[in-house]
């Protein structure tokens, strides 16, 4: 019991620090109605700047803290001025993706800017041990922890007062509740938003600096802490600073207490990571039960996702892909073959998001986790049954479907950023438990794929790269055809109807929940196939290839390529997949990863503003510009051969058609 209470006390200290990080998140959310996924990266900028100023420029600690906070503030303000301000009325997904772009950009640049090694932490506060006046023996806590708790509580109290009693706070709340009304009353929403971004980013920087006193700062560590901060914000309902501190304290204490029992749980279940997973599972439950009331309603959006056009003569494109791809795989220098294969596999994974997000409007930040399940399923099946690769891919896809279904269940009750966070939490839970379990997945060792052949040709992604590349090309073309088939089918029309207006779709008699689950299931199947392909390509599945950050970058890559377009998937895979063709091309510099991520981050932030259809829509627009006239696409809405002639589906697709016609 004594140890348990001690753990609760110590966990509370870390929990309040999470709450400080979450407070910056809350401020930005209130003013911009965006969940800032770059908040952890901005915190990293603060921490690295602080340590850079101390180590490299010899600044004293307090000025360095100010410098670190100012650096974070500058990043936040610049991001608002350059990007978020132009996205005030954009689709929530576009705003969220823009913050993902900033996160990817900061991740790419932090080491080139601050040096390749993570900086040495510097103690900001005295680390003496305090003995509390109770407990036998007396409970103890570090003085630095006590100082952090006090600072966090004071800051949260000041923030509460700022937003409750000052004209700035009242104006911010007014603008958040009803921007147009606030504008009529003379409140300048853009300036308010900038000030709130500045304050939120400053708090991120401060939290980052404080965190660096507890642990070696690193991008990965801060991203994981951000997820906890987001979870705290969600449970606290993005409402109250006081509630943030309470939830953060409780969560921190529970996590610390769970550590005591996680080893026993791991031994009993064969699955590790319960101390990380259980709090997130509870939060997922809370968010799902909380349903739509968790996130307050924002201002109306004037734009939505880009139109889900059908390409003209899709089979011609397939033929062109085959005609160009097969000679490429046969004749290209061997060094380019595998990167092309990787690009195509990523394109297949992106296609799953086209169905889910592009067609049905559901956000998933855990799609690579679903792909991992496909890889695992195919690997396990291959262990026991000697399937040929096509059947193994099918098995991987089918085994991923139940998981996709489960991941999609929360979508029945939650949507938007909440759904994104639930997906991300599921991904992190899977990382910490299933993919860390030696018994289930081989953990760090991963899973070996046995070699197999198709028509007598060895499908070994390492030794038979050309043959495997052609095999992947065939699968990519088939996956693209499948996605287009879905788009043309009545089901695709229902997806578009749900995407356009859930209430409208429901009013037309459509089961919105069932439609969403169908989208999740189809997307999971495609992602599972991509996962199994990755397994064949490597002959051994390394779960690190499927970690949650990969899922995040997948969304940003797709948005850049074109979130509603199969061609966008291929473009995204070729241009921006890590390990893909473009990354290989840039590898001459020795910084391919950095270059690709910088292009990806900058590109996605620019594209959401300039061209939401993504790069895939550029040729069409150029063609239209050259023709000097706008001609509607062959099918821009939910109609099409598969849907328009069926009255029920046509009715269901009504909102989608209306949306498209409104353009």
């Amino acid at each position, binding site marked *: 019991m004594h*140890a348990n209470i*001690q*753990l609760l006390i*110590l*966990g509370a*200290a*870390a929990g309040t*620090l999470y709450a400080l990080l979450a407070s910056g998140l809350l401020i930005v959310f209130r003013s911009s109605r965006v969940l800032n996924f770059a908040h952890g990266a901005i915190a990293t900028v603060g921490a690295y700047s602080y340590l850079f100023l101390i180590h490299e420029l010899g600044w004293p600690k307090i000025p360095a803290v100010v410098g670190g906070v100012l650096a974070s503030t500058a990043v936040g303000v610049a991001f608002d001025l350059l990007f978020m301000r132009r996205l005030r009325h954009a689709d929530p997904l576009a705003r969220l993706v823009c913050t993902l772009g900033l996160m990817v950009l900061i991740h790419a640049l932090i*080491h080139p800017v601050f040096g390749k*090694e993570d*900086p040495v*932490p510097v103690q900001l506060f005295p680390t003496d*041990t305090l003995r509390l006046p109770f407990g036998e023996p007396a409970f*103890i806590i570090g003085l630095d922890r006590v100082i952090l708790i006090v600072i966090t509580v004071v800051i949260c109290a000041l923030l509460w007062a700022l937003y409750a009693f000052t004209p700035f706070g009242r104006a911010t709340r007014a603008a958040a509740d009803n921007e147009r009304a606030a504008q009529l009353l003379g409140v300048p929403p853009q300036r308010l938003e900038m000030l709130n971004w500045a304050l939120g980013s400053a708090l991120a920087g401060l939290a980052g600096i404080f965190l660096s006193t*507890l*642990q*070696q700062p*690193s*991008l*990965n560590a801060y991203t*994981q802490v951000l997820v906890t901060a987001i979870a705290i914000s969600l449970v606290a309902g993005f409402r109250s600073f006081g509630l943030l501190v309470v939830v953060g304290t409780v969560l921190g204490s529970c*996590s610390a207490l769970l*550590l*005591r029992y996680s*080893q026993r749980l*791991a031994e009993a279940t064969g699955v*590790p*990571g319960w101390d990380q997973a259980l709090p997130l599972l509870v939060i997922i439950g809370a968010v799902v039960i909380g349903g739509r009331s968790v996130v307050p309603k924002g201002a109306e959006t004037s734009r939505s996702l880009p139109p889900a056009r059908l390409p003209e003569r899709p089979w011609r494109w397939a033929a062109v892909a085959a005609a160009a791809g097969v000679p490429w795989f046969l004749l290209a220098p*061997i*060094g*380019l073959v595998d990167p092309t294969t990787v690009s195509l596999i990523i394109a297949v994974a992106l296609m799953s998001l086209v169905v889910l997000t592009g067609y049905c409007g559901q956000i998933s930040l855990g799609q690579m986790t679903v792909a991992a399940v496909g890889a695992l399923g195919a690997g396990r099946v291959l262990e026991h049954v000697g399937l040929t690769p096509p059947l193994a891919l099918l098995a991987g896809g089918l085994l991923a479907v139940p998981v996709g279904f489960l991941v999609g269940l929360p979508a029945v009750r939650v949507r938007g950023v909440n759904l994104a966070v639930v997906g991300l939490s599921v991904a992190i839970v899977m990382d910490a438990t299933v993919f860390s379990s*030696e018994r289930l997945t*081989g953990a*760090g*060792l*991963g899973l070996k794929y046995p070699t197999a052949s198709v028509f007598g040709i060895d499908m070994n992604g*390492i030794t038979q790269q050309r043959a495997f590349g052609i095999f992947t090309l065939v699968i990519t073309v088939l996956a693209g055809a499948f996605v287009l088939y879905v788009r043309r089918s009545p089901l695709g029309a229902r997806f578009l109807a749900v995407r356009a207006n859930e209430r409208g779709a429901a009013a037309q008699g459509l089961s919105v929940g069932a439609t969403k689950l169908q989208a999740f299931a189809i997307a999971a199947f495609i992602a599972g196939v991509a996962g199994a392909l990755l397994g064949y390509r*490597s*002959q*051994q599945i*390394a779960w*690190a*290839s499927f970690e949650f950050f990969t899922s995040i970058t997948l969304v940003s890559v797709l948005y850049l390529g074109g979130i509603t377009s199969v061609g966008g998937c291929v473009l995204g895979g070729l*241009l921006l997949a890590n*390990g893909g063709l473009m990354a290989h*091309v840039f*590898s001459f510099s*020795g910084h*391919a*990863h950095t270059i690709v991520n910088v*292009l990806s981050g900058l590109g996605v932030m620019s594209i959401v503003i*300039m*061209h939401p259809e993504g*790069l895939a829509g*550029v040729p069409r*627009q*150029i063609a*239209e*510009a050259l023709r000097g006239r*706008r001609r509607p696409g062959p099918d821009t809405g939910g109609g099409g051969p598969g849907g328009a002639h069926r009255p029920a589906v046509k009715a269901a697709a009504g909102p989608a058609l209306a949306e498209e016609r409104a353009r």
Partner: protein
Amino acid sequence: MRNKDRRRSKHAIALAAASTLICLLAAACSSADGDSTAGEGALGTIPPDSPSPAKSTLTFGSISADTGPVILSSIADGTEAWARYVNTHGGIGGHPVKIVRCDDGLDATKNQDCARRLIQDTSVLAVIGGETVVTPLVAAPLLNQAGLSYLSTETTGEGEMKGPAMFAITGGAITQFAALAKHFPANGAKKVALVNAASTSSSKAAARTTEEVKAAGGSVVATVFAKPGTPDYSPVATQLLSANPDVIFTGVTPTDLPALVRAIRQQNPTVKIATLASQWPATTVKTLGDTKDGLYMATDWAAFPDDSADPDITAMRVMLHRMGRQASFGQGSMSGWLGGRAMEAAIAGMKDDKITRAGLTAHLRAATLTVKGVPVPLTLPKGSAPGGYDGLANPSAYINQWKGDDLKQVALVRDVFAPAGG
């Protein structure tokens, strides 16, 4: 409306121009690549220092983490230093030596890519150690599958070092844990608490350490696995200390070590803490600060930072200095250097036409590396592993050969680092 369309068209044209520029750049770079290996990825080559003899160049690969969350480049630096040293002394039997490095950023996907590139580069005869966290798990099996020998400079665990072309020069973490397990119970610290990074190799190392502690008459009273990058180690420290141990063995990542030690010290200033010499980055010692005073460390023969009487160490220090690098501690530059020396030993008796991947693998099986007068086999004797020879399928047996005098054992970190100057 028309203005909007025009604006969109302008945006589209701007984007198209940017895309075209990228594609042109890509095409230019692609055509400049020439063969499949030149200019690939993070591959960089180190040219021979001295004029090449007429004989063909012997190329070895090394995977290192020159970027990423933890920098683990010291082993590859050591191998590179060895190559330069050999080249200034006429190469191996007249053959100049080249090291092809690949940076995996401590990322499994990039690690796979490194393995793939080294396999594709048919000039690469074998791969020497390097980054020792991901490589033994991911790249090493792939290299073996392709018939490319992998010489581990830090064996990380049982189950990973399987394969007909898997070799090692040291037992690494398992060996060092064994040294700790042997030392502390024998010196009165019988209750041991273990804290390891949450990973497969760590859990296996922990299981093995538990056996070793029991065999030495002690007992493991607590075992905790902490996720690398844990934001606050205080609860971990509480969990460990609640079992009232005499000593805490820690195998957390070097970057996490200072935070863990500080958290333990806050709650118990006197408990003994013992750790491993596993590729410590330069920042670790600085970050430890005063807390390193009560910290014990196990090192094995491949992890010595300084020994002025040892010609290998002296030569390595000189070459590293010329390269602008510093000798590192832990399974670092010395391991990389010795990996090269092991290759030298294997190739010494080979005819020129037999120096191929398969030929080298066969010779590595029979080769021994002599360190300080002690012969070190690079693999188990045939038949000692269950089911016959399977590389290092049973590293425990391998490690057991090297207990005793070859482990330098346990010393205060402060004293260990004193000669190296931190």
